[in-house]
């Protein structure tokens, strides 16, 4: 349900596996976050986790979202370690009877991952590395669901 991985993953294969055999699910929303190159300004991302704690915390949040949005299922895949531009960083999948719940749950989970899940992101660029803080918008987005 929650997977941290230091290996590249294949988003299409994840979606196929998630969508299989769902005769009662009407709606699957998914979000895929890719490392942006920012036209050369970012050469790589580095993601750090506190592995068991991070998985457990994300799992608690997913369980809450599953109840709140009446999901049939949810899945989070998050890269850790070094990530090249264009590579998938995160994928969230949600399954529900109807589209509104699937969309909102996916949106809510992404907002959580951006500023509240125990993950730390470093950008490596021509000017050297810098730790990325959540933006004002990230914080406001996450607060929408409180």
């Amino acid at each position: 349900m929650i997977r941290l991985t230091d290996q590249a993953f294949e988003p299409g294969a994840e979606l196929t596996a998630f969508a299989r055999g769902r005769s009662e699910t009407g709606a699957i929303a998914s979000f895929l976050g890719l490392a942006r190159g920012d036209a050369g300004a970012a050469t790589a991302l580095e993601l750090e986790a506190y592995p068991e704690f991070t998985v457990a915390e994300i799992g608690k949040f997913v369980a809450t979202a599953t109840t709140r949005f009446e999901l049939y299922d949810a899945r989070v895949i998050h890269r850790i370690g070094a990530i090249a531009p264009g590579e998938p960083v995160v994928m969230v999948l949600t399954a529900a009877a109807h589209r509104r719940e699937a969309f909102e749950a996916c949106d809510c989970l992404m907002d959580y991952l951006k500023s509240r899940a125990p993950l730390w992101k470093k950008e490596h660029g021509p000017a050297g590395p810098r730790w990325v803080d959540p933006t004002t918008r990230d914080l406001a987005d996450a607060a929408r669901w409180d």
Partner: protein
Amino acid sequence: MTVQVLLFGKLCDVAGWRARAVSPAPASLNALRLVLGKEDQALAAALAGPGISAVLNREIVRGDAPLAANDEVAFLPPMSGG
């Protein structure tokens, strides 16, 4: 009688280490903060900064908490994933 201390994100860069054993085990989280800060003023300032969370044996702790031998304490800076 040690506690294991873990630092993440920018706290690692400030302290220059990621994990260390502190011995003897301080009696509390606040006592541990003092021990770490006494040796490293930059780390003391960073740990007192906004948005630093403490995690004791994989549970988030607000404020202070007693420590026992073999506890694992992690200090977490503001989070940003995705």
